[in-house]
């Protein structure tokens, strides 16, 4: 396949030229996905902790719902978000369709269950380890939550990275509610889909490599911070 060598050349020239159009697309991708992960974490982490240590009716059902939602099809989320945000929809007056905000909302819905589900698992394991001590200290549920979130922080980073990966990789939802509008809602994945449809396969694949490279850089950054922090904790 000659496309692959072409794609490597394309990726290299895209990166080396600091193409302003590419920078714009990459920057919007990162802003939308990071904001979505942030909001999803603010909801998902407490929800995961609550599902792990809370005792309330419907907890098992809610856990199953969250775990199911970890596999939400992006295109379905996009469709539901479109129907709600459309000017003819329930949230139409907000005028959010075809804006970056709509993309953040759709990605938050996709990512939140992943963060909640994965963090719940970490909390469950940690809690079974800590339960007796926590009870000994007579801590309130809220105080227990704080201790658990802090001590599980490295495992939780993995949950956040999984969410971030999902957000940057999906195309169905952002295409539907963002519309792939040039200079406004065009992100990495929608550009890749568009270039593929134009038959520019090398460009599309080159962009895909750039996307992977960015994901790698984010993961490397997080990993190095974690390693340094862990080392500091043991000194």
């Amino acid at each position: 396949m000659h496309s692959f060598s072409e794609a490597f050349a394309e990726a290299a020239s895209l990166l080396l030229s600091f193409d302003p159009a590419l920078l714009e697309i990459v920057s919007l991708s990162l802003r939308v996905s990071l904001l979505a992960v942030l909001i999803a974490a603010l909801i998902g982490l407490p929800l995961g902790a609550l599902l792990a240590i809370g005792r309330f009716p419907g907890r098992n059902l809610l856990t199953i719902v969250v775990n199911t939602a970890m596999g939400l099809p992006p295109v379905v989320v996009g469709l539901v978000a479109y129907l709600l945000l459309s000017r003819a929809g329930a949230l139409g007056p907000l005028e959010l369709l075809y804006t970056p905000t709509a993309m953040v909302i759709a990605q938050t819905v996709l990512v939140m269950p992943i963060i909640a589900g994965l963090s719940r698992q970490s909390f469950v394991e940690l809690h079974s380890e800590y339960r007796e001590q926590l009870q000994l200290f007579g801590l309130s549920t809220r105080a227990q939550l704080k201790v658990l979130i802090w001590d599980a922080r490295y495992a939780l980073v993995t949950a956040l990275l999984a969410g971030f990966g999902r957000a940057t990789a999906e195309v169905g939802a952002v295409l539907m509610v963002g519309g792939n509008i040039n200079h406004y809602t065009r992100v990495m994945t929608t550009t890749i889909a568009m270039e593929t449809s134009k038959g520019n396969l090398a460009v599309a694949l080159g962009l895909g490599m750039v996307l992977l490279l960015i994901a790698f850089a984010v993961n490397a950054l997080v990993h190095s911070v974690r390693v340094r922090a862990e080392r500091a904790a043991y000194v």
Partner: protein
Amino acid sequence: MYCEFLRRVLPIALASCVSAAAQAGTVLLQSTTSTQNSGLYDALLPQYTAATGDRVRVVAVGTGQAIRNARNCDADVLLVHAKAAEEAFVESGFGRSRSDVMYNDFVLIGPVANPAGIGSDMSVSEGLRALYDARAPFASRGDDSGTHKKEIALWLGASLAPEQHSGDWYLETGTGMGATLNIAVESNAYTLTDRATWIQFGNKQDHEIVLEGDESLFNQYGVIDVDPTHCPNVDHASATRFIKWLTGEPGQAAIAAYRVDNQQLFFPNAAP
């Protein structure tokens, strides 16, 4: 604690995203993939913005979906290529008025080996009949787009019903023009496409135009302003301004001037 954080941070974070959305003079244009993928808007819209200060945001989908989105009021202007559906859109009160903008034509593309033996001197009906009799693979959009509507009309005109062979040699892809072309190229199939998309398409491999020039392959593009009585939230002033420019002298000249590989892709024909 989280609630307070959300209250403080979210408006700031979201505002940075939203700020560009609510400015005046922004036209939301629902349009077809053929006009976007051909690069026409990249050539046209900067000229319009320079002339008026208004910005145009293009959402490019199939004609059927573009019309549905516009019915939901998610557009200020609709620019598609399916005259009957466009007139129905206006008659139902969703659009105020429709004007011709430009035209080009559809072409039948297929493998160079041409297993169905379609001759360049054939009419469309004869070509489709040859294809049908040879059971040569044909990729249909199958997505209610302008090109799909045209294809259905052409089969009907040839008194043929290929749908009964769907999944056999008649392949309904249900996707956009580009994806359908990729499928046609990979599966040695024929397909119908507009000329602009084909000229600009980068993955032709061993496919070429096998039939063109028949009168019934005419491809008219029309523009419609979404009716503000039906959709009070549309920016009708900006929409009118854009349509006036597009169908007026500067817009028409810009359309005529747009070329790819020295070929003119769209021919302006708005009523003066």
